[in-house]
């Protein structure tokens, strides 16, 4: 396999915690501009995979490359974020004690050192960018409210908005529609598809309707390695997948 045209390249990655193999010889390749859905039962290693990609967990073995030639195992979270990988957590994580607008302001692409942050003024370009993102995530009417006061779904969107503000090349989105109403789910699918037009995206999700709505290639993980890969129909027809989901 060539790494050349990939945005993310995992080969033979393994990691274990206290003897438990969370990720076992996992290989996964994502092309530039691709959107991929990852499914798998609980404990399949989905979140751990994201931890590895974003630098939170170091793999015991294997290669992790970003954008063809950047070895991610040599960088920490902040570096990786600056390289252009954005991550949304399973549980919506926003700055609850800041207003919605400040949440985006802190996420905007730009220098990440202390002194500029201490003395910087908000530029018109930044204002424009924030307005644009508000248009995408449709939270403009709440911009002055505390993030804590948002509904669960709105927090999910805000977090996606924060990812967009970062302007990453690759977005890792962990269960974006958990706890959302059907209408919100639909809206989220639309939002992600819109994002995927300009970014590479990995979506981890349990909700099959949502995955179907995305209409992208699906990877099913089980016990830390890839069980099946292909279209959703192909994967859901795979007997082994049915087995791990339904039990024997």
């Amino acid at each position, binding site marked *: 396999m060539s790494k050349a045209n990939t945005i993310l390249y995992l080969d033979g990655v393994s990691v274990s*915690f*206290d003897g*438990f193999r*969370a990720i076992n010889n996992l290989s996964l390749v994502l092309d530039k501009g691709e959107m991929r859905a990852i499914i798998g039962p609980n404990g399949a290693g989905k*979140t*751990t995979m994201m*931890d590895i990609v974003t630098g939170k*967990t170091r793999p015991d073995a294997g290669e992790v490359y970003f954008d063809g030639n950047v070895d991610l195992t040599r960088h920490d979270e902040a570096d990786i974020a600056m390289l252009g990988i954005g991550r949304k957590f399973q*549980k919506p*994580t926003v700055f609850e004690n800041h207003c919605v607008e400040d949440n985006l302001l802190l996420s905007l692409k730009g220098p990440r050192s202390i002194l500029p942050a201490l003395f910087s003024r908000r530029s018109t370009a930044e204002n424009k960018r924030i307005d644009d993102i508000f248009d995408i995530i449709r939270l403009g009417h709440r911009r002055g409210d505390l993030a804590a006061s948002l509904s669960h779904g709105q927090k999910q969107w805000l977090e996606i908005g924060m990812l967009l503000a970062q302007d990453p090349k690759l977005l890792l989105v962990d269960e974006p529609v958990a706890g959302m109403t059907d209408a919100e789910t639909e809206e989220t699918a639309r939002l992600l598809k819109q994002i995927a037009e300009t970014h590479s995206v990995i979506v981890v999700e349990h909700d099959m309707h949502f995955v179907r709505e995305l209409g992208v290639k699906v990877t099913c993980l089980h016990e830390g390695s890839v069980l099946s890969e292909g279209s959703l129909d192909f994967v859901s027809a795979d007997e082994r997948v049915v087995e791990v989901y339904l039990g024997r």
Partner: protein
Amino acid sequence: MVPGGPPVRDPVNDPPEPVLYMGFLRNVVAAGLMLAATLVCAAADEAELRQLVAKFADANNFQATEAVVRELGATGSPAVEGLLTALSQGSLYVRKADDAIFVGDEVGPDIKLRDPLNGEAVGTVAKAGLTKIKVNNTLRRVIRDALGGLTLGSNDPAVRLAAADTMFKNPDPATIAALDAAIAGEAVDSVKARLEQARASAVLLSDLGEADKMAAIDILSSRADQDSLSQLSRFQASAEGPLRASAAAAVATIDQSLALWQVGQNVWYGISLGSVLLLAAIGLAITFGVMGVINMAHGEMVMLGAYTTFVVQQVIRDTAPGLFDWSLAIALPMAFLVSGAVGLAIERGVIRFLYGRPLETLLATWGVSLILQQAVRTIFGPTNQEVGTPTWMSGSFQLGQLAITWNRLCIVVFCLAVFALLLHVMKRTPWGLQMRAVTQNRRMAASMGIRTPRVDALTFALGSGIAGIAGVALSQIDNVSPNFGQGYIIDSFMVVVFGGVGNLWGTFVGAMSLGILNKFLEPYTGAVLGKIMVLVLIILFIQKRPRGLFALKGRAVEA
């Protein structure tokens, strides 16, 4: 050993079995008499002795008293033994009226008098009518030496052994003959060995021939302790020729073996310090480690345990002095209950409103600790309270060249027992299971029918109760004062955090390693720098392992 003093642990390595040696008793008595005979030409008769004793009345300074003691000692009469013992304990009196000498026992404001030689009761006199014959250290030493000579013939092997030790430490060539006699009559091997060592030390100072001295060097070097080392090195400094060489060799050997023992001694001190740390920290490992309550009042729980011990001992002293040796055993459950109850009250009254806000528990329990300290100060006063040590915990014994004190040994054993018990409670009992269930997943536990508030309260009470029984043990080595707990709180937090919060084994290993580390540093750096270095090492260690020694690994769910 002060004759007639408090019962001290038998220093004999192999337990003396007087009954076994009944058959030799006659021999021993005979040897004693023989010895007496060699010390003086003729046994002084009683009248002569009384005359000597009467001299105490005129002896108005220590030197004069000392002279009388020496004279009495020189008589070699067993009759003066009781008299000298009494003198060294400060219970020999002069009756002001007629300058007569008596042994006296204080009974309230009066003194019951006994005859100094035959011990017959003579009557009771008010204190004002008597003058006590003062003794000081020098005099006590002289008396001890005098008794050493006298007691070589004692029936009790332990007393003979003590006598041999005294003579060993104060070698005098003039005693060689007496020692020879004693060795010849001695039936108990361990005592005989000590007598031979005492003789050897005397030989080194005598003008006996080279062969004798060579043999003496051998005997001393086989003893291989600090005393024999210093005697040999002193001898080496003055000796010449082959004697000097062989003394030097012996010194080198002893030095080497002592250095090894020193390592062992440091390990023991470290374990002993570690077990003190563990005792202090183990309750905190529950309240802080398991429940997440930053319990600044933990030290005060320990203090309450120590004060409970004090109260228990006071009651025992007043009502049943015979039970005193059991006082700690009685105090243990009491302390557990007292501290546990106070802990329960704190949990129900304050802490339960603060769960989930660990840093605020710090504030509230800090307030609680101030109140408890001041309460104790108001009730018991600010000064130290006397917590006695049961006789079975006093003194020390030798294990090879290790000096092990009984109270430290008891604390180590006790600490291990508490730890094992706690592990058992946590791992093997339904209550422990509930406790673990509640701390791991509260809601799940609640829905399984576990009454979580009750488990919280009992867990906190358990942690506090354990702190209380730690207080019982620590009262044996430290001041029992209102500030008692303050001295342990910082160390306890260090231990728990160093070991890894929430892990009992971590606390155990943490306490022991900090204790041993401290004791190995202390000889090189001194106590102050040693402690600073340990603190710095903890800071550095936490950089390396930000969650302590025994951190739980895994995909920690982080917000």
